[in-house]
């Protein structure tokens, strides 16, 4: 059951009525309903993995209480270690064990040693990367004394399984979501309307932009060795837009559905393509993951490497970004993707402009020439790494680059699609104009309701007439 399916529409409609009407705004009833709804939502995909989600929640609930109540630091550390081993161990087992086995076998076969190890036939439980990061951060925050554990199991279990963001994030921290689960929620008309707008904008991004781009990128990346360099550049461009529109579209829908239930969850994207350097880009791209890793990987590393000056900082950033890459999946392409992004930071660190926050085209309609150039450069360098990200192997990525930067680079590209490109321009233009707002359709500045409703209707019309409905899955489901 995915957001853009008829099943989910029916599920959510029934859930919405029960949640607001039948519950009579009773907090306990709402939370129980939220938990049951989340489990139904998850079990719809594969009920067998529900036990993993429940088991993980149960263990982490008691570990959280245990860490908080422990008198000695040693016991706290022990309990935290159990939580980390269970959470990250499960993640490693399902997501990375085959990768490590294959990599070892390949490495040893280089020296003519046959390890006789075989990869296991494992199914990656949906959303495991996302809910594991929730439980791990919960324990770490309790251990550091930043938050108190939840004493209400229904609240905690609902936090772990909160269905709007269970499958593909945003990765909400306990400090954001648990307080909202613990207090009475009243229906807020404006919040609900804005939730609907955000869902609609997410659907536009997903169906009209991402899935139409996906049709072309599939052709280009599958047959890249038959196409001229200019088409491969086009493929990289369409894929960069596809992954942004797909993932940020999903996040918009998740935030929108959460708003309809009275929650404000973490913003995951903040118009990343309007960034003037790579640091700006990562402050706006997959925000919930980058802040998580900043807190639990980057910051501890910078402390550990503080005696090594800029070299230490570079090392911390490269390890942090390689971890981001590895989080996406068990493939050297993801690791290289993260590593390259880490390397992009080196000039900023050397020049000392890492933490400089450039606000772009402040209150102006258009960016200045230099802002435009910096934005374009940032987009291009990010786009180049997405070739690695999209490729099946590093050698395929290298081959793609070699063919792209060949003599056919300046030829007329094949597979250029005017309609899709037109909608990409619409997406970029709308998001540029709305960059101070939470999403592209937050059109509260249009005072006339008729005008607002006409815009919603036009968006729906475009989705149903121009949307591509043959690729319903979201790219980030597999991560």
């Amino acid at each position: 059951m995915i957001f853009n399916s008829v099943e989910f529409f029916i599920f959510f409609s029934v859930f919405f009525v029960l949640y607001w009407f039948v519950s009579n705004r009773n907090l306990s009833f709402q939370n129980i309903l939220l938990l049951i709804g989340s489990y139904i939502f998850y079990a719809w995909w594969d009920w067998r993995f529900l036990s993993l989600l429940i088991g993980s929640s149960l263990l982490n609930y008691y570990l959280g209480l245990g860490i908080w109540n422990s008198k000695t630091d040693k016991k706290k550390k022990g309990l935290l270690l159990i939580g980390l081993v269970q959470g990250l161990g499960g993640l490693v087992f399902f997501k990375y064990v085959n990768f490590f086995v294959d990599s070892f076998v390949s490495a040893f076969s280089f020296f003519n040693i046959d390890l006789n190890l075989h990869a296991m036939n494992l199914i990656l439980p949906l959303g495991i990367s996302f809910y594991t990061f929730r439980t791990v951060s919960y324990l770490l925050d309790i251990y550091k004394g930043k938050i108190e554990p939840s004493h209400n199991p229904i609240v905690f279990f609902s936090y772990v399984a909160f269905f709007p963001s269970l499958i593909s994030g945003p990765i909400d921290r306990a400090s954001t979501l648990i307080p909202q689960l613990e207090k009475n929620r009243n229906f807020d008309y404006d919040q609900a309307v804005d939730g609907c707008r955000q869902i609609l904008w997410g659907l536009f991004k997903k169906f009209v932009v991402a899935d139409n781009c996906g049709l072309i990128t599939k052709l280009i990346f599958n047959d890249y060795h038959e196409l001229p360099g200019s088409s491969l550049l086009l493929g990289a461009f369409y894929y960069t837009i596809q992954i942004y529109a797909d993932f940020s579209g999903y996040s918009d829908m998740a935030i929108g559905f959460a708003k309809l239930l009275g929650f404000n969850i973490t913003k995951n994207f903040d118009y990343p393509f309007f960034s003037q350097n790579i640091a700006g880009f990562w402050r706006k791209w997959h925000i919930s993951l980058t802040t998580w890793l900043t807190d639990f990987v980057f910051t501890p590393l910078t402390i550990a490497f503080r005696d090594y000056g800029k070299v230490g900082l570079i090392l911390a950033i490269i390890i942090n970004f390689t971890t981001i890459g590895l989080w996406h999946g068990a493939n050297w392409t993801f690791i290289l993707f993260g590593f390259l992004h880490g390397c992009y930071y080196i000039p900023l660190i050397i020049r000392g402009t890492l933490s400089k926050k450039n606000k772009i085209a402040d209150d102006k309609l258009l960016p200045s020439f230099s802002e435009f150039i910096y934005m374009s450069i940032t987009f291009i360098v990010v786009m180049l790494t997405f070739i690695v990200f999209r490729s099946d192997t590093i050698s395929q990525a290298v081959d793609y680059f070699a063919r792209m930067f060949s003599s056919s680079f300046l030829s007329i590209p094949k597979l250029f699609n005017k309609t899709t490109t037109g909608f990409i321009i619409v997406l970029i233009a709308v998001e540029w104009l709305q960059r101070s707002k939470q999403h592209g359709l937050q059109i509260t500045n249009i005072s006339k309701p008729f005008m607002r409703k006409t815009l919603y209707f036009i968006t729906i019309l475009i989705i149903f007439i121009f949307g591509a409905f043959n690729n319903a899955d979201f790219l980030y489901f597999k991560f």
Partner: protein
Amino acid sequence: MLTFIKKILAFTSIGIVLYIACLFVLGLFVPPSILPNIKYKPGNYGYMYTRLNEADTASRVDILVLGASHAYRGIDPREFKKAGWNVFNLASSAQTPIQTEYLLGKYIDSFKPKLIVYEIAPTVFSNKGVESTLDIMANSDLNSEMFKMALKSRDLWVLNTFFYAIGKKLADGKKNIKDNAGDDEDAYISGGFVQKKSLENTSSLVFDDKQIEFLESQKDAFERILAVASRKNVQIILVQAPITSEYYRSIKNMNEINNYFLSRKANAYYNFNDFMSLDSKAFFYDHHHLNQNGVQYFNKALLDKIQPFLKKN
């Protein structure tokens, strides 16, 4: 909150009406080629426009043929005419039971057939029938039964195209449509048959094993087709036309499929793959369509099987 729900419901209701109106207006003024989710292609493939025009003016026949491309490319009325039987082939590309039910309902009273030969290619039972619904929609007049068929498909392309087609047909009037002859390889033969000129089969004959799972909606439509034939006192014979032996062997649940058809309330079921052995290169033009030589062999064998049923009347 009630205000919110009321407003959502009002917006949805008005939105649906406006959406349909917009599709109609697009049909009047905008060509379908620039609208990706509207698949309106009259005369696109398989001569459906010509076939349905002929069906609209045809009268009584002895045999009415239903089914998908195996039927309209495999059952040649000329072969049956030689034996003195009139045949009309109402089959069309990828026609599934849902569309067959619609076409049978529309034409059974005007054709008044003695016998229905229904070619039941198993693959169409696993198909939602979108391609075939769009084919019929673009090539015939629209009516309420067609709208019901469009609704059954639960497909955005079909529903969009239905409302677009209302406007488009109004805008185009009685414009003559020319069917696509498939690079001059196809020729329409009066009676609904399409003859492929090529006799050569150059397609690959290597296939992965597969299981064909029937959709419940198609099985339900199939039962209704049998019920219509029974109600109208028309004999119905189920037939599987020959396909290449390589392709046939790749379908691993054929026993189950045969048992399913044998257990239905039809007058007979003949799977010609079980008692005809045709060379895959000499009698086919691709992996599952007979060439004209194959058609002649198959039609002769089919005629032998159905003569007793025709002579009953």
